[in-house]
């Protein structure tokens, strides 16, 4: 009996080599393990084995069955692996993939977000105000005399009731101080409006970002530290930044800020990028009058303010040649900012 089982084992070992496809493997299974298979029939012979031989023969039977089943499983796995390999045969990994549609944040959104992120890290929070403003918030409270050139209907959009479209986001400074006690440290990104014909460098509606920091003993050194860091955050940590004295009605001393950049294929040059200054005491006085208290007493608090044009920032950053590209929203233009 044992010899018979060994013979079956040997036969199977030879036969499995020839089972090269599913049908042959099935044939193999039937021949050895099927109901009338060689092993099944041999197992039936257990009845006739003597009691003392039974454990040894039983063990042998199990061994052989396990081996034969193993043959089938191994060959089956091999055949599957061959099929799998076949299925992937001829797959050209260099064919183009199926890409998800990838759109882009508008360059102005991106440049604004960079500025906001940098300033938030320095402890600024966001503030907002209406775009349709009063003359008080846009001009009077910002120390802009009634006969200032900006305050006429040629340069500023007015409404029939005397309201106007804010000419700068600086009006948010006023609104914030009216409702918030110092210290304040805010940034206000948003739209501003000027009655300019639209051309390659002008828009009638454009984006600005305003900043204001008021507390006790805010100094010119704070202004420098904050703005140098801001522009280095946007344009790179080694960007040279310089301040030029200038004049604005609502700050004193006032400065324009230049950064030194190297436009593609050109010599490095200084590019004007923002205006800033220490808040003029007359602005604080106006706020005190408006609030009816003296928490912004110019003898007690000082502060700085700054404003920058976001279109200009974006144009400089990406070398955008015409400001109108920023309002046309041509997909071919926008998609260039997809990975930016």
């Amino acid at each position: 009996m044992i010899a018979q089982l060994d013979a079956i084992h040997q036969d199977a070992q030879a036969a499995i080599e020839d089972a090269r496809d599913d049908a042959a493997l099935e044939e193999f299974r039937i021949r050895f393990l099927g109901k009338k298979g060689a092993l099944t029939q041999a197992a039936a012979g257990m009845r006739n084995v003597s009691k003392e031989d039974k454990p040894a023969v039983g063990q042998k039977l199990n061994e052989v069955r396990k081996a034969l089943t193993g043959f089938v499983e191994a060959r089956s796995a091999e055949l599957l692996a061959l099929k799998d390999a076949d299925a992937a045969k001829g797959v050209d990994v260099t064919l183009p993939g199926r890409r998800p549609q990838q759109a882009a944040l508008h360059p102005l959104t991106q440049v604004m977000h960079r500025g906001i992120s940098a300033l938030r890290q320095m402890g600024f929070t966001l503030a907002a105000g209406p775009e349709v403003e009063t003359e008080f918030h846009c001009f009077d409270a910002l120390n802009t005399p009634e006969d200032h050139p900006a305050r006429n209907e040629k340069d500023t959009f007015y409404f029939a009731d005397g309201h106007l479209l804010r000419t700068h986001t600086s009006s948010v400074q006023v609104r914030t101080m009216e409702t918030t006690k110092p210290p304040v440290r805010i940034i206000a990104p948003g739209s501003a409006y000027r009655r300019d014909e639209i051309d390659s460098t002008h828009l009638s509606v454009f984006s600005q970002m305003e900043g204001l920091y008021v507390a006790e003993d805010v100094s010119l050194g704070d202004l420098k530290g904050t703005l140098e860091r801001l522009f280095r955050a946007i344009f790179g940590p080694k960007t040279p930044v310089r301040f030029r004295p200038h004049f604005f009605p609502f700050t004193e001393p006032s400065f324009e800020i230049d950064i030194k950049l190297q436009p593609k294929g050109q010599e490095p040059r200084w590019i004007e990028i923002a205006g800033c200054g220490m808040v003029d005491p007359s602005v604080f006085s106006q706020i005190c009058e408006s609030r009816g208290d003296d928490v912004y007493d110019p003898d007690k608090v000082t502060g700085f303010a700054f404003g920058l044009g976001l279109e200009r920032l974006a144009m400089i950053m990406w070398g955008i040649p015409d400001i109108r590209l920023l309002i046309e929203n041509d997909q071919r233009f926008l998609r260039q900012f997809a990975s930016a």
Partner: protein
Amino acid sequence: MNTSLNWLQDHIDLSDYSTDTLSDLLTFAGVEVEGVQARGAVVDHVVVGQIKSSDPHPGADRLSVCQVDDGSGTLRQIVCGAKNYKVDDKVPVALPGAVLPGDFKIKEGKLRGVDSNGMMCSGRELQLTEDHDGLLILKTEAATGMPIGELFESDTLLELEITPNRPDCLSHLGIARELAALAKRPLKGVAHHGATTVIQQAAKPEEITLDATESCAFYTARRISGVTVGPSPDWLKSKLEAIGLRPINNIVDITNYVLFEMGQPLHAFDVAKLDGGIRVRLANDGEKFAALDGDEYALQTNDLVIADQSKVVAIGGVMGGEDSGVTDGTTDLLLESAYFTPSHIRRISRRLDLSSDSSYRFERGIDPAQTVGASELATKLILEIAGGEAEDVLLVAGEVPAPPSPVTLDHGRAQRLLGVDLTEAEMGEILTGLGLESQGDGAWKVPTFRGDLERHVDLVEEIARVYGIDKIPAREVASFAEPSKEDARYDATHQLRQRLVDLGYDDCLTIKLISDAQLGDDLCSLRLGRQTQAVPLKKPLSQDHTTLRPSVIPGLLDVAERNIRQGATSLKFFEIGTVFSKHEKSPKVLESQQLGIVLSGDMANPSWHGDAPGADLYDLIGLCEALFGGGKQAVSMRRLEQESLLAAAEILLGKTVIGRLGQVIPARAREMDCQGPLYVAEIDLGKAIKPSAPAEPVTDLPKFPAITRDIALEVPADMENAEVANFFSKRNDVLLVGFKMFDLFADPTGEKLPVDRKSVAYTLTYRSNDRTLKSEEIDKAHAKVLAALPKLGDVRQR
């Protein structure tokens, strides 16, 4: 302001400064150098030539062919287009090889077939003068062949931007004074700016009456008789030409010279054209005035005029009259030097849209103390140059405005504002350099030309800019910040933008002003109710931008149209921005943040795998559901009738309408050349996002299996799905935990279903939280649902 370096050197020695150093010195003290031009003929190969003959060009009427003596011994033939010369005139000749300003290379060549071996030049071509009307005619004494550089002194022209607070810098003396303070060196002290010597005599009423002291505080006049009007001497001409002014005659040139020398505008009247004494008065309403610029101006009652006994002869401080000025025949002059009030000049200059070198200075504020000195300097020059005799006395009316009040500098406060440890002495040195005088105890006397220094902070500014902002150390100190509502709003909005971008929608920004045509579009006013209106501008700049947008949709449709023209096949655009409206009964403009979406065409990138699916209404509905329905409240749609939309819906978040969407009527889409259906949505973000909503606790995962049963219902074709869904959501069997639609079937042929019927199929999910359900329990619950079906109306289970 155009500033001549040579002229500046009349007042201060700058010979050791390079142009770059000088530019930086001024720029970093707040006087920005916007441009630098080398003046004077520093050009090689340009010589004095004499025109020996001039004949018409055979092939061109406007050209002449000249033979020019360039000193070489042979005549040079040059074709020329100018007309202002005569034979024997001497002119600059650029020889072949010369390179004129602007990198203009001169070569031998032919002009309309005639040889031309060089070029005769205008003043502007050589950057000697502004004159471009014809050739620059040189003095007859100039030697033929002499390099032109020997004839014209070289100079540097600085174009300075003077900020409105610094009128004292609007003259060469003023800039020199500024440089003296910055470079810490003395002024030369020009003789004619010394103490005044003329006797001032109060004018008699018949000489001068001053009736408007609010607009003109101080008025002086000097009578000079027997002058000879004629061309100015070369030194004077070249001074004016150096800063781009065209010499006119000796009297006018002298007044211009004094203006650019000292910053005091003057005016010379021809006494013969005056009817009696001068009256400084307010205009009569409707009074007309013919000004020097050739225009006539209608005056109003609060306009200040200079008049004689019968007529207006000047708009005070702005412009003289056509009929009273100095001409070649003038012999007797009345020389005006006055102080006009800045606010008055600003107002009238703006109203008349009339500006001059005079008004530019008066409206910013001149030094009131120099009125007499400037008159004396001009008088002295007139007598020297034009002859004649001046009266001994200067007629004056009114009073010189008071000098600026002293200002106190608080050293500690100044230090704190600057953030730098400057000593009191260092600050004092800077102020002294600027012409201020210490009066002790921190008080500083301000010079008359610095009326802008009124407050403590004004002194601090002077110290900052002279000390140099680059030397002030940057400080980096921050403090904790309380996030604001605006922070939360911004973050939520930015996250929304990012999600849309990740889903393939492009972030757009369009102009917030729209045209009347766009406003008239029904699509633009989905949001406006019967009582809500758009907000028009009072004075639009163009027909394209007349009104503040009440919606972002019109701008986005323009974006779609532009991109269709460019061949885009997947139109997925959104804009988030402010929209404006107002209630018809209130002037208050309401501003809110709106999201607009435009969708059409491919929903995936085109690929070799096959065509991308085209967008349909359910892509847009699904997008809105996904963007805003994340929280406890679900997003649902409610049918809306809208003229410009097919299949329109209101978007609801819970029970609140947050926006609208729909398919743009196809006729409109076709007008835009849009290839497939075009969809739009607008959502009021103020209602749709709650930036500071508290975190919602998570739901436990189910512990026991769920069993589903499908159900198909035959319902009337016009029954909205919302009705069916509502039926299921109202079943309050605890075991029924969910329902989901999975199929919709209708048969337009009527074979499988009548045409007025449709089949909707739902999967119902049953589950218990505390046990595995037995099939009898589910059967019972499901039977209850089926039994309730008649409540849904004309419904049959299939």
